[in-house]
Structure formats: C-alpha cells, structure tokens
C-alpha cells in the first residue's frame, strides 16, 4: 500500500460536472452533469451506443485504462475529486465497484477465490472470516445455493448467468460505497433477475447504485431516479416515477414508448 496516496471518503454521493469523454478524436460524451445522492438507486437508460458504459467507466476511472481514451470535466465522490492525481485509482475502484455487461470472473481462480479476489490484495482474513464473507456475498448475489458444494471449482465452470452473479458477489465482498452495474441481468433468467433486483433494492440506502439497463420495467422497478442518455447527452434526469408515467422531453417519451424513428 502506497502511504502517499489518499483514500476517498466514505458515503457515496457522486457529482459529475461537464464530463466530456471519448476515444482518440471521437467524442462520445458531450458534457454530462449529474448529481447522485448517496444511497440512491439511479437507472441509466438510452439506446445502444449512446455512451452509458463509457459514462459508468468514467465514474471509477476505468475509462482511462483504454489507451486511446480521453476525459475532461470533473467527478466528485463525497466532495472529493476522483481525478485528483494523488488519488489511487485502485482504492477508488474498491469504493466504486463495478459489475460489467459481460461476466468476467478471473479465469484461473476458484469460485471462492473469485469472491475474495478484491480483498486478498490488501486484507489478511482468517479462513473462518473468509468463509463467512464468501457465503454472505454469494447469498446476496443469489448464487449461494447453486455453488455451496463446489466452491473450489473454477469460476469459469459456471454458466453465463451464474458467472454474472459471481461477479456481483465479488464486487459486494469488498463492501463498496458505490456499485456500478452495467446491464447486470442481461444474461440472467427471470428468477435470478428477480433476485438481483431484490438485492439492488435491499442494498439501496446503504449503497449508491447506478444501473444501466435496457429493460424499462426493470429501471422502473428498482430505481428512484432515472437518467435518459441520447447520443452522449443527458436528455432528462428525474424521478423514475415521472420518467415512466409522464416524461418532460419528447425524446424520452419516444424512447420509452418504443418510437425509434
């Protein structure tokens, strides 16, 4: 651990100001300003390619891992600048966990080690503590019953939907403040989806969650606020109940009612 570097404060309030981001010469996000209260579930909706994943990745500095990526503007986590050069992105990413669109368990690791992967780098856990943590995280991710008898099997031996829930368990195990979920249910069956949605709602209040979803009903069910992104612009950001019953912007209306031109 590098003692020079600061850890972000706990809480989970996010404020972005005029985020402009893209790849090479191509601007993908054209100035996104959003304020997200701690403990809230925010849904991010918008057509494919509008920049949802890019936006999420800007929040925990994963965007900059792409060599051609650029970003301007500011992201604050509990008032602290995320792009402060003195801030360790590794710590930031522990505070701001992410579940990706495609499941990405560590291929060489067992199910159990995958859950603990984020922790073992810094924490020394007793085996019994680790066992408890693994069980809790897998339970939260609605996977425990399916894998409890084969925790030593490789993570890759699971089905796609199970791998996704394993990744959710992994991100929960480090107890982040913010959880970014990029279409976490796209590979899940309706039962696992219901359990993940239940999880999201039970985490709300303690965790700030931003979920990207193409399922409008899912956004309506789990989030308290919804943001509609179109071609790299934030068209509307409002109470979820308002967005899905009477959005203000005609473009939002057209998108959520299925009028794509």
């Amino acid at each position: 651990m590098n003692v020079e570097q600061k850890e972000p404060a706990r809480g989970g309030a996010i404020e972005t100001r005029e985020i402009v981001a893209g790849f090479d010469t191509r601007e993908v996000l054209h100035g996104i300003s959003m304020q997200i209260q701690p403990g809230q579930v925010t849904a991010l909706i918008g057509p494919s390619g509008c920049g949802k994943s890019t936006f999420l990745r800007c929040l925990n500095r994963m965007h900059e891992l792409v060599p051609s990526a650029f970003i301007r503007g500011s992201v604050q986590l509990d008032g602290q600048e995320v792009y402060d050069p003195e801030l360790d992105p590794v710590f930031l990413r522990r505070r701001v966990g992410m579940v990706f669109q495609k499941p990405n368990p560590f291929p060489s690791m067992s199910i159990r080690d995958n859950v603990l992967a984020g922790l073992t780098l810094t924490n020394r856990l007793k085996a019994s503590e680790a066992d408890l943590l693994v069980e809790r995280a897998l339970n939260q991710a609605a996977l425990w019953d399916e894998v409890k008898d084969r925790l030593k099997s490789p993570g890759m031996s699971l089905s796609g939907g199970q791998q996704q829930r394993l990744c959710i368990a992994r991100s929960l195990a480090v107890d982040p403040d913010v959880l970014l979920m990029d279409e976490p249910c796209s590979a899940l069956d309706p039962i696992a989806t219901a359990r993940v949605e239940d999880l999201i709602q039970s985490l709300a209040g303690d965790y700030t969650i931003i979920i990207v979803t193409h399922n409008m009903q899912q956004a309506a069910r789990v989030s308290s606020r919804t943001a509609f992104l179109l071609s790299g612009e934030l068209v509307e950001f409002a109470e979820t109940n308002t967005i899905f019953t009477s959005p203000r912007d005609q473009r939002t209306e057209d998108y959520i009612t299925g009028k794509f031109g």
Partner: protein
Amino acid sequence: MPDLKSHTDKIFDKELAEVSHRIERMGTIAGDMLAASVRAFNTRNTTLAREIMDEDTQVNRLEKNIDQLCLEIIAKRQPMASDLRFLVLVMKAVVDIERIGDIAVNVSERTMDLSRGALTGSWEELSEMGAIVLSMVRDGMRAFVESDEVLACEVLKRDAEVDRLFVKVFADLIELMGNRPDVINLGIHVQSVAKWIERAGDHAMNLAEYAIFRVKGHDGRHAGRS
C-alpha cells in the same frame, strides 16, 4: 392520437388504435342513449324509452370487452408514459361511459313512470340542461379520443351553466309541489330526472379531465372544482 410518430412495432400501434376505436364506439352508443332518453322524457315517448333500456346491454358488453383488451395489451406490452396513461385512462373512462348508459336507462324508467301520470307543463330549463350535458358527453368523448385539450377545457366550463339550470329546475319543482300536493309523486320523478342528467354532466367532466391527463401527463382532477 396526438403523437405523429408511430411505434417501431407497428402491431402495437394497431392495438392502441383498436382500443381507441372501441371506446369511441362505446361513447357514441352511450351518448345516443342519453340523447334518446332526454328526447323520450321531453315527449313522454314510452316506446323509445323501452328501446333505450335494451341498448344498455351493448354498453355493458363493450365495457368488459375494452377492459379485457387493455389488460391484455398491458400484460403483453408493458406500456410506458403516454401509452400507459392512455390505457389506464381508458379503463377509467369506460366506467364513466357505462354510468352514462345507466343514467339513460334511469331517465327512461322515470319517463315510463311519468307517462302513467298527468304532470305536464314545460320543463324548458330541463331540456336545456339535457342539451348542454349531451354536448358535454359528446365533446368530452371526442376530447379524450382525439387528445384535444382545448375542447376538454371547453367541456369543463359548461358545467357552471348546468349547475345554474339544475338549481332553477329544483326550485321550480319545489314551488310547484308546494302549490299542488296532487303532483308531488310525479314531481319527485321529474326531480330525479334532473338529478340524473346533472350527474351525467359530472361523468362528461371526468372524460374531459382524462383527456387533459392524457395530454398533459398529470391529474388535474379536484384542482379547480370542489
């Protein structure tokens, strides 16, 4: 429909158009029934009154049928925003339209009762009330189906005149019954007719308010009137 843009899934457009078509039809029948019942009352036409009573089954059948269609579309499409508002409001509107049909039946029943007595006299204010309420029902329906907010507001404005006429009819009847105890029985029937027609006006107001909700996206009920 207000939005010129159509759904990417064209079948969805057709389904919504079908709902719109059916509720329009239901509204037309109920409106015609009400018009006929007022005419039957004015002319004490018992044959017409009896016909109206038979038509009510059609309205009832349409109510169920439209509710069912809306439920199926909601289950299948999980509509959002203006589509969701439209379908939910249709399910509310059918209740009001069905009541309008019931009122036409009630007015017809009173007409039958009245035909057995000898209470004549001109009920000019009552016919006037009937005409206004009828225009409210027809325009309320049209405002809802065509998402015409301006027309809906017009409908809401007509209510004050209905109220004024109702108070007048009521007062006249009380005076008449005070002077002629022999017609109290019939006077009460006329009074109920006035009350029913006034209530049909309330249902028309609801339709107009649904029209505004459909367009504006928020419920304006109980804002201006109480």
